[in-house]
């Protein structure tokens, strides 16, 4: 008995050790980033090792005062939230239709929606550029909104659909005999029931949108439409050389909101990511 208990204790210690090491491995670079962001520039490029870094808000002031960081942030937020909103408005009814009605070609449509995600984005980069050029939308956040929405629409639809498949059919039948129309059922029964799925899909879409780089770079040619991700890339160039501390700070700022959201919904997130695989 005692031996058994001890062995369980040992394996617990081991488990914590492994998990702790993994956590350190994941978190260390992030903390390193933060520490770089909060040090003076000279200290970062010095060849001597420094054990006790100096705290400095140089980079912090620089990014807000010398660059239109607030504007980039605003662009990011607008483009991302706008795109997620577009996705939800389109994906929820589409998912409902795919999960609930039977009609000819339904499964093909479902597959088509998913297949838009299967090609390399670079393939459509040039056509997309001309498309937005002709629409007069180059260098606007509207274009970013649309392009992010288009990129994410397929899996947002797919995730929400898989949650909808899990709703017991009886629930909708009950609502129907209670006198509810299809739209009512969608609005009052189905959407509340798949809310975790909707939130998950929205967050994943946000993460993808935040990290989107290729199309953003293509469409945003001036700071008018720069987002955080492109602004970050632009830091590397310039007459001042590479400004590591500012880059690190901006990267950290771009990372933090995503991190917090993911922590908040991680329980749903893993389900959302495996969803399409489980429920064909």
């Amino acid at each position: 008995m005692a031996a058994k208990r001890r062995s369980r204790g040992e394996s617990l210690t081991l488990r914590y050790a492994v998990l702790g090491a993994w956590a350190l491995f994941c978190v260390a670079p992030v903390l390193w980033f933060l520490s770089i962001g909060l040090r003076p520039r000279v200290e970062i490029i010095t060849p001597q090792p420094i054990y006790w870094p100096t705290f400095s808000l140089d980079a912090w002031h620089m990014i807000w005062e010398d660059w239109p960081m607030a504007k980039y942030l605003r662009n990011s937020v607008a483009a991302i939230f706008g795109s997620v909103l577009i996705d939800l408005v389109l994906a929820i009814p589409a998912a409902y239709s795919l999960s609930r009605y039977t009609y000819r070609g339904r499964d093909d449509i479902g597959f088509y929606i998913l297949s838009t995600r299967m090609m390399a984005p670079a393939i459509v980069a040039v056509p997309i550029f001309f498309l937005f050029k002709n629409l007069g939308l180059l260098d606007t956040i509207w274009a970013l909104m649309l392009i992010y929405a288009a990129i994410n629409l397929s899996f947002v639809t797919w995730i929400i659909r898989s949650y909808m498949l899990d709703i017991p059919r009886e629930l909708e039948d009950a609502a129907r005999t209670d006198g509810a129309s299809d739209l009512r059922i969608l609005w009052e029964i189905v959407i509340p029931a798949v809310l975790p799925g909707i939130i998950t899909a929205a967050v994943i879409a946000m993460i993808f949108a935040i990290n989107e780089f290729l199309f953003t770079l293509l469409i945003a040619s001036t700071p008018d439409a720069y987002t955080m991700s492109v602004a970050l890339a632009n830091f590397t160039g310039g007459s001042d050389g590479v400004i590591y501390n500012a880059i690190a700070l901006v990267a950290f700022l771009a990372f933090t909101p995503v991190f917090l959201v993911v922590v908040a919904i991680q329980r749903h997130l893993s389900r959302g990511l495996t969803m399409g695989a489980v429920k064909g």
Partner: protein
Amino acid sequence: MARIELSGIQKRWGDNFGVRNVDIDIADEEFIVFLGPSGCGKTTTMRMIAGLEDPSDGEIRMNGELMNDIDARDRDVAMVFQGYALYPNMSVFENIRFPLRMRGIPRARHGELVREAAELVELTDFLDRKPAALSGGQRQRAALARAIVRQPQAFLMDEPLSNLDAKLRQAMRVQIKRIQRELKITTVYVTHDQIEAMTLADRIAIMQSGEIQQIGTPDEIYNAPANTFVAGFIGSPPMNLVDGVLEGGVFRSPGIEVAGLPEQRGGQVALGIRPEDCSIDGDSEQAQGDSAPHLTGAVYGVEPTGDLTYVTLRVSGKLFEVKAHRNYRAALDSEASVRFDLERVHFFESKSGSRLQIG
């Protein structure tokens, strides 16, 4: 409230029949129970009445009006589902109120109507809770209240008690019957539990493989089963069925001989006799005949239940059930003789299984 007629109703999925040729005329205010084993088409029939499933053939009428093309939400029937189907995001109050909102009943009356329905099922203390915070019995009541609240043309209940434990089931059964009598609303009730069917129903429709085998009052079904399926399905334990030959007023089968029957019929038949219509020799409380016993066999098992004793006999390799007085005991493998109440002996055609009218 509503008379419901089904005529020639069928439901096919490809080549498979879910429901076949169902004809039934359900009277206004009647409590009808569809009884049958799992998969016999009870739910499908009910869903067709609700409008959740379209019949492949046949007509459904309510109060004479053809309902086939009328959408579920316009049929004004309320359904109680096996899994309750409470809306998980709404409180019990909102659940019960939902049909009122959907049917455009003036808001001012909602509170009062919901409270009345909740009172009827004794759920007033739980109106603020979400369904997840209710026990099975309370969920059942909430589902019932949601059906009651708008006083529909008909109630449809699909095995509403099957998820409850035995004690609660009995309590709810009485309550459902009481409520139905008070509200006088036509009720179609589906179950595979014969006790529920017998106790609740004005009439029972017994189904097997998508077809109705017999429609009748519980007494009719118990006293004059239309065929061997019904005979073997109703009663606990069910009716004993013995294959044999009827000739010249005498039924014979190994270990069994019953004389004194009317002589006009004959041939291969199955004799049916309920365990409660048999008396076993040596059972002090039951009448002892002077004539020869009808059946002799070896005692296979004795099961006292408290209020009576089940005795199982083995007669030429087949088991035969008798209900004896609670004090009856017998050694295993001892010989026992049984007499039948000849008034209550049933005969069925061996081939088709359908009831033979004798005498």
